């Protein structure tokens, strides 16, 4: 009798073992790797992604920068660089994604932005699609993202080359501005909108760029992207004013600043040092941000950068 019970127990255990074996999820095969993305999600990717979807313009530019455009099967409607991207299928308009089109494109990697973490990313996860989020907050994170993307897509060489190239260009600018004293660093006001005045404070890429380019951000006491009153902005007497705008559209904020009576008393307006910069370059964290840094350096220190 007791052997019978033993026999039953073994059978049950054996059956359980078998079922758990068949239920075992993706075993780690030698060709799959685990990554942690920018919002802390664990992403497991098998093999080399062949069909990539990008859900933000900066991610798209990074894909092109690493030479992966042939594998790009989905972009957003805001993507506009490089011009070739117009031929790609649009699957999202940056805040609402078209799930059908994404699924239909059969991607094995979706590059998302943290802004989508509440809705799109969980939805994609539930459909079993790999999502890797890239939201670099500063330039070091950005270089890291490039390297990560290179690793994931097996383009490590291209990524490393690109990163070292960009780093040396950044260094070239820094070399020239590092020797400047505080007095030599002009006070810079950065503006994205005028009513109220939206500017960039500490912990933003813009602040970093201004610093690297040899300027002092007059809004550095504010945190993140914030508003500043007209009086405060004028009182801090900026020597250089940079207004960001989408190229090709009328720069209303620039017109406002140039014609405003209070601003007329600032050094920037007295010396006609009000400049316009491209939102596509400065608003996105892409390889072109280094172009932006060089442009900014030329605007702030024309005497140092020819």
């Amino acid at each position: 009798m007791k052997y019978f019970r033993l026999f039953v127990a073994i059978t049950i255990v054996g059956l359980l073992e078998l079922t758990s074996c068949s239920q075992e999820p993706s075993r780690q095969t030698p060709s799959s790797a685990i990554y942690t993305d920018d919002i802390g999600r664990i992403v497991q990717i098998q093999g080399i992604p062949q069909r990539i979807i990008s859900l933000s313009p900066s991610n798209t530019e990074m894909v092109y920068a690493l030479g992966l455009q042939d594998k790009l099967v989905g972009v957003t409607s805001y993507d506009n660089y490089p011009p070739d991207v117009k031929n790609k299928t649009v699957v999202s308009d940056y805040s609402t994604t078209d799930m059908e089109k994404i699924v239909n494109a059969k991607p094995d990697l979706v590059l998302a932005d943290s802004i989508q973490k509440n809705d799109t990313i969980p939805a994609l996860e539930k459909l079993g699609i790999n999502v890797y989020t890239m939201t670099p907050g500063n330039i070091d994170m950005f270089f890291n993202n490039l390297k990560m993307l290179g690793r994931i897509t097996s383009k490590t060489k291209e990524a490393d080359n690109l990163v070292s190239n960009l780093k040396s260009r950044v260094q070239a600018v820094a070399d020239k501005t590092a020797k400047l004293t505080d007095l030599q660093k002009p006070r810079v006001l950065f503006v994205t909108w005028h009513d109220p005045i939206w500017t960039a404070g500490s912990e933003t890429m813009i602040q970093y760029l201004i610093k690297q380019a040899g300027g002092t951000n007059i809004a550095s006491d504010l945190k993140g992207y914030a508003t500043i009153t007209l009086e405060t902005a004028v009182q801090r007497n900026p020597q250089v004013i940079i207004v960001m705008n989408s190229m090709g559209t009328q720069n209303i904020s620039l017109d406002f600043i140039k014609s405003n009576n209070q601003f007329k008393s600032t050094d920037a307006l007295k010396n006609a040092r009000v400049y316009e910069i491209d939102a596509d370059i400065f608003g996105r964290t892409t390889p072109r941000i280094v172009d932006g840094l060089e442009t900014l350096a030329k605007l702030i220190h024309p005497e140092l950068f020819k």
Partner: protein
Amino acid sequence: MNDQNTDRKQSTIMINNHNESVAHKTVRELPAYSSRRFLRVISISGLMLACIIISVLALTVGSVEIPFKTVWQILISHLPFVNLRGDWSSTTDMIITGIRLPRIFMAGAVGTALGVAGATYQGLFRNPLADPYLIGVAQGAALGAVVGFVLPLTFGGSYLIPILAFLGALAAVSIVYLIARVGRTLPMTTLILAGVAIGSLLISITAYLTMISANKVHGILSWLMGSFSISGWDQLRLISPFLAIGLVVIFLYSRQLNVMQLDEEQAQQLGINVERTKIILLVSATLITAVAVCFVGTIGFVGIIVPHIVRLIWGPDHRLLLPLSAIAGAILLILADTASRTLMAPAEIPVGVITAFLGAPFFLFLLRRKKKAVF
């Protein structure tokens, strides 16, 4: 005096003889509720059938072209005991059953909730302008959602925003209720005023929070305008029990709602426990509205328009008005959602915009229809 008594006796006799003919006339003029069941069943099942047909049609359209026959085959292949293999890819199957179908169900569920809640609020407040967001549900949900966007909270995973929106909605209504309550009674006009006041306060807090988090504005705006784009089966599983309970309770009180259309004193004299009925209906309607709004954002006009349309066609009896508002609400929102995802694909027009587009002309139509009072 004696003459009076004789007169009285005579009239009694007349009344007694009358009784026999009453029965015949009554059946003709005033059929019993039970004998009108046929009409009710026809109306409800007819509308239900329309809903199913519209849903199936909605299933066949989308930003990815899938032929009608394939959709049909995929649907049938998922029925139990059916073994049908076809030439469609698993991607196509996923699009139909994993994206479009839950989305349609979600639109239907939210439409049902808003239609019934709107009809209930209109009946409770005896006001044709009442809608489910009258006493702060929308404003509370919006604030809860924005708090979830802005603060670095991590509990709940992808359900963080819906949970906060739900709690926000309930909290807002509770505050409004506590302010409006007078002793053991709940005067309805005070409730509306408190709702407006608290609602404005919540809106301003929401606006402030939105303003100071510039990088989240896009996401917040999307949520506020309402969208079904990320509907999934798990969300439906979560909201179904709340929705079911709320709907059942409200339907049980349909006849009481009829009686409540008289003033509160008369309703009380007809045996209705007015205060208790008010609270139960308010809680149920608020519950289903909160649960509808928390995943999808606030979608306007459905709660106001649908009950009026149903009332125009079928009359004010809540025993028919409520179930028909449920189905009509589902139909309207499924249509609106289908339009929102196909008119400008792959971009989505927010559903709230489409319902507003339908709502404005409808209100004008209502205003011009003075001959037959709608409420």
